């Protein structure tokens, strides 16, 4: 597989075409839930995402919805992230966020830890992206929006 094909894995192209969680859902949340929204822009290429998160009183991600425009890497990454974190406790979301950042710093080598890569699921498909320094920020855009929306929801302070 060429480095270009390593970057644009089929799972990434599929998520870019049929994204998960796309289309913002109203933030009016259920009793005791906390909700937050974040808008993130990549000023160098104009990619953007607006992401909303809904957290249960027990500190689990009840739902993620988003709207965005940009390259296939940025849009697929938000989509993959959405399917990964829905239903996950906040501590697990924080762990996945850390793992994904480690993956993006791996320069194409991956995490070298099968268990960790298993927990990232489809997100490991972005390993090839980490070979292209200019594209890493594309893959991280959605994760930045998730982190910020969780902070804004107030759920992190109480969990």
């Amino acid at each position, binding site marked *: 597989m060429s480095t*270009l094909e390593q970057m644009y894995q089929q799972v990434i192209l599929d998520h870019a075409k049929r994204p998960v969680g796309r289309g913002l859902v109203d933030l009016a949340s259920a009793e005791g839930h906390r909700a937050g929204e974040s808008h993130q822009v990549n000023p160098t*290429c*104009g990619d953007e995402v607006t992401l909303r998160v809904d957290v249960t009183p027990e500190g689990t991600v009840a739902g993620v919805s988003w709207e965005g425009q*940009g*390259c296939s*890497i940025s849009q697929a990454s938000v989509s993959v992230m959405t399917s990964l974190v829905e239903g996950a406790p906040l501590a697990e979301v924080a762990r996945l966020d850390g793992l994904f950042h480690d993956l993006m710093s791996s320069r194409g080598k991956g995490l070298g830890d099968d268990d960790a890569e298993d927990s990232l699921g489809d997100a490991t498909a972005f390993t090839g992206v980490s070979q292209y320094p200019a*594209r890493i920020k594309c893959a991280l855009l959605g994760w930045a929006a998730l982190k910020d929306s969780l902070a804004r929801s107030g759920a992190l302070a109480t969990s």
Partner: protein
Amino acid sequence: MTTTTATVRPGDPAPQVQPADGSLSTTELAAVRADFPLLERTVRGGQPLVYLDSAATSQKPQVVLDTEVDFYEQRNAAVHRGAHQLAEEATEAFEQARAAVAAFVGADEGEIVWQPGATAAINVVAYAFSNASLGRGGEAAERFRLAAGDEIVVTEAEHHANLVPWQELCARTGATLRWIPVADDGRLDLSGLDEIVTERTKVLAFGHVSNVTGAVAPVAALVAAARRVGALTVLDACQSVPNMPVDFHELGVDFAAFSGHKMLGPTGVGALYGRRELLEAMPPTLTGGSMVEVVTMESTTYAPPPQRFEAGTQMVAQAVGMGCAAQYLGELGMAGVARHETELAAEMLKIAEIPGVRVIGPLDTANRLAVVSFVVDGVHAHDVGQVLDDKGIAVRVGHHCAQPLHRRFGVAATARASASVYTTVEEVVAFREALAGVRAFFGAE
């Protein structure tokens, strides 16, 4: 990389280059390419580099690199001070470079002010207006004073560097920003010019050539409109100076800005052109050493231009390199360079025939340069650039520091191919062929 004995001095004719009356012949083009060491390198697994990003920054001929090294090896000293031989030689090289740049753009030596780049140059003018509006510069600076009710006119096609400084100047002075719109073909729409440029207009700032559409602005019409109402004109000449003959006196603009690194010169240097009487009347922006006459604890009088606008230690080696670049292009002949690039523009514009490819900008080669921005249906510009890069083809992606122009065409980002004197038709053909395969790669229907 070849190592050449560093004996090139500003003032010497640039070697290895044939003056060209017509477009560049194949032999001449081969000779030009041989001057650029970077063009010999390979990228992405040993493929030849196809560099189509010269509108962002150009590559440098060996003679420019040697001139800069030679300055550091043989002449390095502070300019305009010091009683020693090195200081004399450094000053001479610095001022000869100014003369070379001035001659290249149709200006007098005293009308060229060294700046770190074109952005800095435009800001010098904007802050001069600002300082004059605060009362600095005395009576001479009257025509630089702005207040509420005054207007500054730009165009919708501007690079942020020729837009944001004017927005900021308006915010500081109470003046109002207005703009000339862009038509669907990417050229300026002058149909409402008389309603936009009026007695209230004090500044008309516009780009000579758009860094997105490649369209050459109708300078004569804009200068005439500004003169009718007594407004000063500021020309962003970053894309024109490296690619076509430019004569500021002939164009009749009041100020112009251009950068060294886009015209085969070093980074960190550019120039501000100003008509002599205007530079003389203009208050300084950066203040400090080297730009003064008499300094007391209470107050300071300022040196005449250009030194008035060159505070602090200057980027001497880069300036000398920029002078060399001007000379290199001058020896080559800008009329021939422009004809060569018109051929390249025609080759580039054939991408409009590829299904799903839409060019943002004029589709004909009249009054346009070889800067071609485009979108591909169903594929984001960043992804387009990545697939081209995989074949060794370097293009720029994004908004190219012109967000309003992209908004005008309803796109967030475009990919852009741009040429310089060393670009070949074969490279453009390789680009077209690679581009034709992009939609299939992403399965776009």
